[in-house]
């Protein structure tokens, strides 16, 4: 079985699908078929997919329960804004620096906290996210409690869409390598993983850093879309929101993170006209989903695997038919 060939073919198909999706949506946006309200929602969807996919790497794939994702997003949002506003750096570079700053914070915080397990780690990361937010709140140079305003509006659909595609490819390729497999083995059984020669601390910190990197990029896209970075956009409730997306889609599934983020953004937007009952319906959707599909939409499966299995079953069925 040629591993690389199958992967290449699959990658090309995904890339083609991305290009087609991009062309369709940018055509619809340019022709103003999509209203400005839905344009905003589409941008948010892409940002949320980046956040959900990167959180899924930490929580779903590596099995480290982190509740501090909004904190990393805040670091990226502010650092990249400072880069474009004060240093006039090109947007792409500013995003990258914002992401790297978040990854750096992720490593600093990850090394001590990732010794903890389960609930303890959740509490530690929750606290960490709040510390980041409150620190920013107390830096007057970046606006303190009133937020950082006047950020150039550089984010558009093209930026968020391709940042999303890069994130998804990055994490997908990582998962399908020895690095990703180390992360998965930590989730499955840390004792067995270390007995197989895997440095579990390294795997955890790596997942944490990569997750933080993309959360930072998402933060940069976010602040350059709304022209403002405000501490209240990065509270632990936001972290919960991203976690909900991941759990809804299915912990550990990339396809799930995409579907979860898209679905929740869509539900929130669709209910925008009914503010009185919005939260009730939102909560109801979550409860129903958790009752009927507690493992999330995708469980920990991927869309491609389900497709493969389906094809196999159909082929198997045909074979039987011929035999009889």
């Amino acid at each position: 079985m040629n591993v690389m060939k199958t992967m290449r073919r699959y990658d090309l198909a995904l890339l083609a699908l991305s290009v087609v999706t991009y062309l369709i949506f940018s055509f619809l946006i340019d022709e103003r078929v999509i209203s400005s309200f839905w344009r905003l929602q589409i941008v948010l969807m892409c940002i949320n997919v980046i956040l959900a996919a990167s959180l899924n790497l930490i929580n779903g794939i590596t099995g480290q329960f982190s509740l501090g994702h909004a904190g990393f997003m805040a670091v990226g949002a502010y650092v990249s804004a400072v880069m474009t506003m004060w240093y006039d750096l090109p947007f792409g570079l500013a995003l990258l620096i914002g992401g790297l700053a978040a990854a750096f914070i992720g490593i600093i915080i990850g090394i001590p906290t990732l010794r903890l397990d389960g609930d303890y780690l959740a509490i530690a990361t929750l606290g960490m996210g709040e510390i980041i937010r409150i620190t920013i709140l107390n830096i007057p140079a970046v606006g303190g409690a009133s937020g950082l305003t006047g950020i150039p509006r550089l984010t558009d659909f093209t930026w968020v869409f391709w940042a999303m595609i890069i994130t998804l490819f990055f994490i997908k390729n990582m998962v399908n390598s020895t690095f990703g497999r180390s992360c998965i083995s930590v989730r499955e059984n840390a004792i067995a993983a270390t007995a197989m020669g895997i440095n579990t601390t390294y795997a955890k910190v790596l997942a944490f850093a990569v997750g933080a990197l993309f959360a930072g990029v998402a933060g940069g896209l976010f602040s350059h879309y709304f022209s403002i970075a405000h501490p209240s956009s990065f509270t632990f409730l936001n972290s919960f929101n991203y976690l909900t997306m991941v759990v809804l889609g299915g912990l550990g599934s990339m396809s799930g993170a995409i579907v979860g983020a898209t679905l929740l953004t869509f539900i929130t937007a669709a209910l925008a006209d009914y503010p009185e009952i919005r939260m009730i319906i939102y909560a109801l959707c979550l409860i129903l989903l958790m009752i009927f599909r507690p493992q999330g939409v995708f469980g920990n499966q991927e869309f491609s695997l389900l497709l493969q299995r389906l094809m196999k079953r159909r082929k198997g069925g045909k074979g039987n038919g011929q035999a009889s």
Partner: protein
Amino acid sequence: MGRLLETVELSKSFGGIKAVQNFIIHIDQGEVIGLIGPNGAGKTTAFNLLTGVYKPTTGQILFEGKDISGKKPYQITAMGIARTFQNIRLFGELSVLENVKIAFTMHSNYSFPEAILRLGRYGKEEQIIDNRARELLTMFKLEHVTDEQAKNLPYGQQRRLEIARALATEPRLLLLDEPAAGMNPQETQELMEMIRWIRDQFKLTILLIEHDMALVMNICERIYVLDYGKILAEGVPADIKNNPAVIKAYLGTEE
């Protein structure tokens, strides 16, 4: 035959409990050694000391002449000691193939950027991992279940998979913690043949903990008996079988 592993006055205490005391063993290359003893004698603790799960309270472990006491489990695995667990520890949700692929992680050396961009050594090395994992699974007659989730395998196959996975790390010393636990006599018979075959095929040394005396007496060249954390006896199977101290430890004394 060279000396592969040697322990020097190894001991481990948990608070006031001396789980293992003055544990002195030596293993030569190519041997199959048994470690037996009543329940709670400290056999698994000894294994955990050898594989770095516990740090010894005192003493040294010399593997191929190097002191490995105090090293982390993954470092010890990298140096050439692999193990299985008494209560099977597979990556249950993952496929059989992925279980083995994870154990090859240590031996691939493409970099993180190469993995993300799928360039350079990535393709070649992933292909090697895939081929070798499948090869190993074929050797262990698991080739027909490569895509099954490990947790869904029957018990005997799970044990085999765990051994295959340990071998993927390319050890020179293999530690088996009760490999025959829960097996019926026929499976035990097959296991016995498999252990011998592994030793010859992979040219390695095996240390095993086992309660099944038929198995131990049959395949071990030397046996250590552990009781209350101390080595009670050492010798070839025939001697151990007739050693009054061993019989006493296992059966108690007739009074």
